């Protein structure tokens, strides 16, 4: 029984790889949080288009990506696209897949927040002579973003946790490195417990950061 000492030795030995994996995890989380947010804004902007067909298209997009598993999208790109001679790296597949998925969620949060806005504000902005784009930029967006801060930061926390899915398409992030650690000494329980602890710690840090962001962005009389 090599027990803890064996596990610790392997852990120390593989620490550089594990840390590199952790960096990959954080990198992926940050990238998809940003791209998912930006693309989500675009989707949100078009969700209020004057053209009916655009609105339906956006509705369909949001509904479809909320209704289908991310992993299917990742597998489609990773295992499917090579059929057309298009071989993307695991990282690129993860970024594209997550971005499309996360954007759908973010757009849904923003839409919900917009439905809670006071319609007379939009009317009065129009009466003042603001154009559509200006109203979006200066009236709708600032309020909707503030109202959505809890949902958006929650999404970022979700992104961190969900990034572990990327190992299923051979992206060597933190959880993939933990698998390797477990495979060398068969201490699966300890390895996965360690992984769970690390994710919990990272999530805790994100939660604290999210509270700060909520504090900074709060306006008197808007939202809770």
């Amino acid at each position: 029984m090599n027990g803890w000492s064996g596990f610790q030795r392997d852990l120390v030995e593989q620490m550089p790889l594990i840390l590199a994996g952790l960096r990959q995890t954080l990198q992926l989380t940050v990238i998809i949080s940003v791209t998912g947010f930006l693309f989500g804004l675009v989707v949100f902007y078009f969700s209020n288009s004057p053209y009916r067909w655009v609105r339906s298209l956006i509705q369909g997009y949001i509904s479809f990506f909320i209704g289908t598993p991310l992993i299917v999208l990742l597998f489609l790109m990773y295992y499917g696209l090579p059929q057309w001679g298009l071989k993307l790296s695991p990282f690129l597949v993860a970024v594209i897949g997550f971005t499309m998925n996360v954007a759908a969620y973010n757009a849904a949060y923003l839409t919900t927040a917009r439905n809670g806005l006071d319609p007379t504000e939009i009317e009065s902005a129009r009466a003042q002579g603001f154009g559509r784009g200006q109203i979006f930029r200066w009236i709708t967006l600032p309020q909707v973003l503030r109202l959505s801060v809890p949902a958006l930061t929650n999404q970022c926390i979700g992104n961190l946790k969900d990034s572990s899915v990327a190992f299923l398409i051979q992206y060597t992030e933190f959880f993939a490195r933990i698998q390797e650690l477990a495979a060398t000494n068969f201490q699966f329980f300890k390895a996965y417990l360690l992984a769970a602890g690390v994710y919990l710690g990272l999530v805790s840090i994100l939660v604290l950061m999210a509270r700060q962001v909520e504090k900074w962005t709060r306006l008197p009389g808007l939202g809770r």
Partner: protein
Amino acid sequence: MNFFELVAQLAQGLVSTVVVTLVCSGTGMAVGLTVAGLRRMGYARVVPFLDGFTYIFRGVPVLVLLFLVYFGLPSVGIKVGPLLAMALSLGLIAGAYLAEVFRGALDSVEASEILAAEAMGMSRFQILTSIEFPQMLRLAVPGMINEFTSILKYSPFAYTVGIAEITKQAMTLTATTLRGIEIYLAVGVLYFLIYRILLAGVHYLEKRYQVPGLGTT
């Protein structure tokens, strides 16, 4: 093999996907109701445990917990079957999230009605089951839909522990036919259909038990 044959092949995994989703949803509901109920009953001593439970299970990725339960527990002498492993990972995580959904909805139950039930001579448990839960469940529908959708979307993880659900069928098919694009598109559509049916089911129940003046109308 044409497209419909592909779909027919994939559909063989449908039952497993639905079973996994229902088992995890059932576990989540039971756990969520228990946690929210215990918190509501006001036993101060259990509250830290409830807080700890929701904090941990909302902070650990589904996949990590699934691996911990299915591959980890045997190395400390506890053998867990695939479906139970799904219930103990995805189901418990869903339970932690649902507990929070229920907690929020319970806060919307009128304090005056609880007082009236107390004045009537009802026990705390009777108030919970005949006043608070019936109202809370109606108020919690949107949050519950989110959670059930999540469960469906995480259900493909079941393939990693050897359950032959839709995604697993798709992987096998892709390996033999090399037609990943059609297959995974079909899989996406299949999940979307399950999602819409699930949604329609919940909306049907919501409508059936709808009460004027309570929740979404």
